C-alpha cells in the first residue's frame, strides 16, 4: 500500500527509464491499417497506436502521445513486443499484461522478458492505469474500433 523507497527501484527499473528516455517506435506512420487513440484524462496521459497489418501479422507499429515515464515506457515496450507477431499473439500479450498488472505475477510468454520489468507497477495502484494504457489502446486498434480508449475504471486503480 505505501511507497517504500526500496520499492522505487521496483517501479523505475533501469530498462523502463531507458525506454522512457529513448522510446522505440515513437514516430508517425503514413498509412496504418488500423489505429487507436487512448487517453487517461485524469492523469493527462495520451497514447496513439498505429499498426500496419499484412498476412495477419503486425508488419509495423508506431506510437505517439505524451505521459509519465510508466505510460511511455510501457508503450515503447509494447511496440517492441508486438512487432512481427500475429494479431492473435498481440492479443495474448495484451491479456497477459493485464493479468500481470492485476496479480503482480510473472507471465510465461515468449518475448515478455523485458516487459517483466513493469511488473513492479502492480504494487502501485495509482500507476497501473498508466502502464495499461498502451496495451488497451493496442487492443482497441486491433479490434478496428474507432472510439477512444480510456482507463478510468475506479475498480482497477485508485489514481
Amino acid at each position, binding site marked *: *500500500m505505501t*511507497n517504500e523507497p526500496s520499492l522505487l527501484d521496483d517501479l523505475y527499473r533501469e530498462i523502463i527509464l531507458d525506454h522512457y528516455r529513448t522510446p522505440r517506435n515513437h514516430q508517425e506512420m503514413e498509412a496504418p491499417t488500423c489505429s487507436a487513440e487512448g487517453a487517461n484524462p*485524469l492523469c493527462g496521459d495520451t497514447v496513439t497506436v498505429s499498426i500496419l497489418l499484412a498476412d495477419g501479422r503486425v508488419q509495423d507499429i508506431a506510437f505517439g502521445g505524451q505521459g509519465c515515464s510508466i505510460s511511455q515506457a510501457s508503450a515503447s515496450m509494447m511496440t517492441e513486443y508486438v512487432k512481427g507477431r500475429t494479431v492473435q499473439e498481440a492479443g495474448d500479450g495484451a491479456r497477459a499484461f493485464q493479468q500481470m498488472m492485476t496479480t503482480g505475477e510473472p507471465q510465461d510468454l515468449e518475448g515478455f522478458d523485458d516487459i517483466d520489468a513493469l511488473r513492479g507497477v502492480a504494487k502501485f495502484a495509482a500507476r497501473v492505469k498508466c502502464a495499461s494504457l498502451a496495451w488497451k489502446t493496442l487492443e482497441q486498434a486491433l479490434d478496428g474500433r474507432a472510439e477512444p480508449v*480510456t482507463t478510468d475504471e*475506479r*475498480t482497477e486503480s485508485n*489514481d
Partner: protein
Amino acid sequence: MTQTDMDVQQRLPFDLDRIRRDFPILKREIHPGKTLVYLDNAATSQRPVQMIAEMTRFYRDHNANIHRGVHTLSIEATDLYEQARQRIARFINAPRAEEVIFTRNTTEGINLVAHSWGRKFLQEGDEVVITEVEHHSNIVPWQMLRDERGVVLKYIPMLPDGTLDLDYARQVIGPRTKLLAVTAVSNALGTITRLDELIPMARAQGALVLVDGAQSVPHMPVDVQALGCDFMAFTGHKMLGPTGIGGLWARMELLEAMDPFLGGGDMILTVTMAQSTWADVPAKFEAGTPNVAGAVALGAAVDYLEALGMDAVRAHEVEITDYALRRLGDVPGVSIFGPPQAQDRGGVISFELEGVHPHDVGQVLDTHAVAIRTGHHCAQPVMAALSVPATARASFYIYNTTEEVDRLAVALEEVSRFFGVRA
C-alpha cells in the same frame, strides 16, 4: 434485577455487559444519580468506541484527499475509502462494491434516485406508488417529482393495526406503475412491511422497487439480491456509524443508465469550457470530496455489527421488544400502536399515555434520564391515519436491556401520577 428480567437476560443472544462497555455514553449521568436510558435508537444510534477510534485513527494517521493522489497518505486514504465500500456492499450482499454510492444519509439516496432516475426515465402519467407509512424522506421527493414532471403519485394505505392494506396494494400497483418506493420497517410504528408480497407485485407489473432500508439495514440481516429490489437507501448514523454518511445501492445497469446527480470534481472524465463527460459508476454519483473519514468509520461500524451477527442483533431486538410490549402493556393508561407481535416489528414501540400529551410524557421521562422521542417521527401521514397529534416512541438497539425497559415502565407510572391522571 427482577426475576422476569433475569429470565429474559439469560435468553438474550449476546453479552450485554461487554457490548455496553463499548458505548461510554451509556454510563453518563444525565441528572445526578440518574444514568442514561437511551431509547431513541430509531432516530439515531449511539456509537461504539471502535467506530470513534477508527475515525480518529484515520484523521491522525492517514488523512488525505482521495483519488488522483500519488503520495502515500492519499493512496492509503483511497484504499481505506474503497475498502469501506466493499465491506458495506458485502453487508447488504450487493453483487458488486461499485454499486454502493456513498451519500450523506437515506434522504439523499432517495432524492438521488428521484433526480437521476426519475427525471430521466419517468414521463407524464407514469405512476409511482408509495405507502402511507413512509418517512417523509420517501414521500416528499416523489411529491416534488410529481409537481415538476406530472408523474402520478399513488399510495398504499395503512390499516388500523399499522400494517399495509395488501388487497389495496394489488389494485393500486398496475401496468402504469414504474416504481414502488416502500420502507422495510416503519420508523413511526415499527411495522415490518411485507416486502415478500409487495416486491413480487411490483415486479409482475414490470415496475422497479426502491426499498427504504433506514430501519432494516441496522437491525436485521438484509440481502438486496434475495429481496429482489432495485434500489436500497440506508443511513450510517442509525447503525453505529457517524453522522453525514449513508449508502445507496442500485443495480449496475440502472446506475449506468442514470444521469449524474451533482456536478463537480471527481464525477467527471473530461471537462472543457464547452462540455464535460462523466466518470464511471460509482464516481459519477460522488461529486466533490466525499465524507472519507465518515465512510471509513462506517466500515468499522459494519464490522462491529458483523462480529455480533445480524441474526443475533435481530434476535435480541425481538426479545427486548417482546418484553417491552408485555411490560408497557401492563402500565395503566398505556396504549400501544402497531402490530401486537414482536416478530412483526422492528425494535420500535409507539404508544400513548392516557390523559398526557406525548410532549409532556417525554419531558417528564427525561427527568428520569429516560430518552424517548415524541412527535410525528417524520411520518405525519401515520399520525393522521391514527388520528393522533403525536405519539411517544421507545426504540431499541443492541445495548438495551430489559432493566432499561423496566425503568421506562416505572417512569411512565410516575408520569401518570405527576399529571394526576390516576389516583
